[in-house]
């Protein structure tokens, strides 16, 4: 177990170092930092001094090492655009993205699981096949199209919910939440649905496949032979045996939800990390881009590692196999 833990953690660190390298390359070589920082009046001497101060004349490895050490401390430098600390900028935007991804995850479970169960139990009926078909469309529709369609129908035509923005937010320490105000919750609805749609279809298809598998198992047949009512078999005996893979997938996919939120945030003008990133790209704000890349990757890698470790703790066979 210890060996497995060490291996898994080493793996995660390696991935993060690779990401940091990529972020560093963007920061250092996609345009000259001094040119991007400097303003018109700066003299040549000032520029050389700045170059020296930033350590840009050191060897590649030294610079990369310094970048990694700083990044590990949460220091990504200051934004070229407004001179603010990059980490502070991201921390400001972090709650918005987090709430969006969390609500999308909850939606995907609340909608995906029952749909999966229903389509598994009533397979062959027209509505199950219909849902299966719709889910294929759901998987293949780009999320910005979904977002625009949702805005058109629910915000523009029906006027039920706001089309963009976060509504009113309440500050809880450094965390700003939209969940405590009516307008905040209403604003959250469309973007989280747009973001969740793909995940809903994934959950539904996974639950359906797992359910069909479990319903064929002996213990389900034996439960029937004991006189357990169908509904109870479906929702108590069978569904519970399907939840492990669903939880795993949900945890694993949370990272990609945050990454995909970039598109949704742009469509809905959602003031999250994704929007921050897009703005950074348009302004060639390299430190912000590098910071975003590192933070999102960090969330991604951490979740995957945790899920892997949790799995090994829970399933003794897996633990033995990876020893």
């Amino acid at each position: 177990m210890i060996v497995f833990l060490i291996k898994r953690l080493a793996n995660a660190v390696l991935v993060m170092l690779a990401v940091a390298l990529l972020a560093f390359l963007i920061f250092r070589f996609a345009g000259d930092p001094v040119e991007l920082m400097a303003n018109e009046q700066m003299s040549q001497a000032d520029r050389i001094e700045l170059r020296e101060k930033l350590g840009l004349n050191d060897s590649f490895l030294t610079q990369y090492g310094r970048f990694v050490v700083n990044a590990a401390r949460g220091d990504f430098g200051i934004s070229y655009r407004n001179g603010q600390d990059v980490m502070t900028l991201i921390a400001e935007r972090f709650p918005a993205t987090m709430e969006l991804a969390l609500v999308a995850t909850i939606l995907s479970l609340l909608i995906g699981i029952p749909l999966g169960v229903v389509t598994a139990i009533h397979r062959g009926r027209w509505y199950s096949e219909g849902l299966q078909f719709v889910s294929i469309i759901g998987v293949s529709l780009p999320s910005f199209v979904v977002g625009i369609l949702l805005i058109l129908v629910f915000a523009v035509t029906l006027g039920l919910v706001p089309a963009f923005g976060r509504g009113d937010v309440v500050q809880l320490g450094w965390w700003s939440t939209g969940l405590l105000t009516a307008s905040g919750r209403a604003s959250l609805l469309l973007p989280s649905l747009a973001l969740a749609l793909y995940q809903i279809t994934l959950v539904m298809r996974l639950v359906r496949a797992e359910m069909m598998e479990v319903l064929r198992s002996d213990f389900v047949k034996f439960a029937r032979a004991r006189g357990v009512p169908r509904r109870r078999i479906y929702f108590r005996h069978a569904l519970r045996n399907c939840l492990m893979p669903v939880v795993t997938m949900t945890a694993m996919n949370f990272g990609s939800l945050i990454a995909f939120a970039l598109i949704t945030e742009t469509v809905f003008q959602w003031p999250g990390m994704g929007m921050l990133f897009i703005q950074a790209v348009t302004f060639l704000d390299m430190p912000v881009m590098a910071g975003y890349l590192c933070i999102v990757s960090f969330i991604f890698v951490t979740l995957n590692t945790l899920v892997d470790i949790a799995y090994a703790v829970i399933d003794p066979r897996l633990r033995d196999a990876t020893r």
Partner: protein
Amino acid sequence: MTEHLSSAVLDVRGLCVEFPGRHGTVSALSDVSLSIRPGEILGVVGESGAGKSMTGLAVQGLLEPPGRISGGEVWLAGRRIDQLDDKEMQQVRGRQIGAIFQDPLTSLNPLFTIGAQLVETIRLHLKLSKADAKARAIQLLKEVGIPAPEARYDHYPHQFSGGMRQRVVIALALAAEPKLIIADEPTTALDVSIQAQITSLLRRLCDDHGTAVMLVTHDMGVIAETADRVAVMYAGRLVEIGPVGDVLKNARHPYTRGLMASIPALGRRVERLNQIDGSMPRLNAIPTGCAFNPRCPEAGPRCRKDRPEPAPVGSGVSACWLNAGGVL
């Protein structure tokens, strides 16, 4: 006739089961009739695919669609049950018919304690409080010979050995004091050394509770030791049924005689009954006349033309022209 039948716990009359399929309908059971009296153990034997499990499933109303009962009747304690809907059958399954499956490793839900599964079954069928149901569950565990039942009550299936799990399954089958238990190869998946323990436990419990048992098995040794009567099946039909002593010593049907010849010595166990030359026909390729005729050493012209119906012979029933006017 009616007099005798009404005293039976289970009375299956002319049962037919068919599976409609793309290439036409196959009949998995045709004209199966058998009855079991209270406290009696009926052994059911026959080669793999003969329809033994199918008979048990049809009685419990557990046929997998599109399989369905296409003819005949099933009576349980004087009540016809083959036409009940699934809701009504839920009250029969577990309550009046207990079930034991082949593989105890997969019969129990891995995510629930055995106590939870026992209490679930008990409370589905008997009006007992949670505490009373738990007390009954522990009592049942004690009865099936699980040591320290109070402590074991909270354990999960994977914490038990195969033999112990099958004891739990037996406790589940007995949970609501059913009149009939259908045990489909209850010892096949178990270690040889504990098979005898499980069969004798089953025998003893059913004697104590007056429960009738339909015991499906490949093991003629088990039949000889535990069954009162034995039914022999072949290609979805019943070929012979009678008291176990008579059938073992003096079988009427050539197929049964072939089966008996395949037992090395009474009491020793064989895995498969495969001493008879040839193999059982597939259900969609059953020969006309007697289904057994291509393999029967005594077959005559009549056997290839007409199908022999099950008819009373001596103390039992046999479906063979030898017992009904000759094979010519």
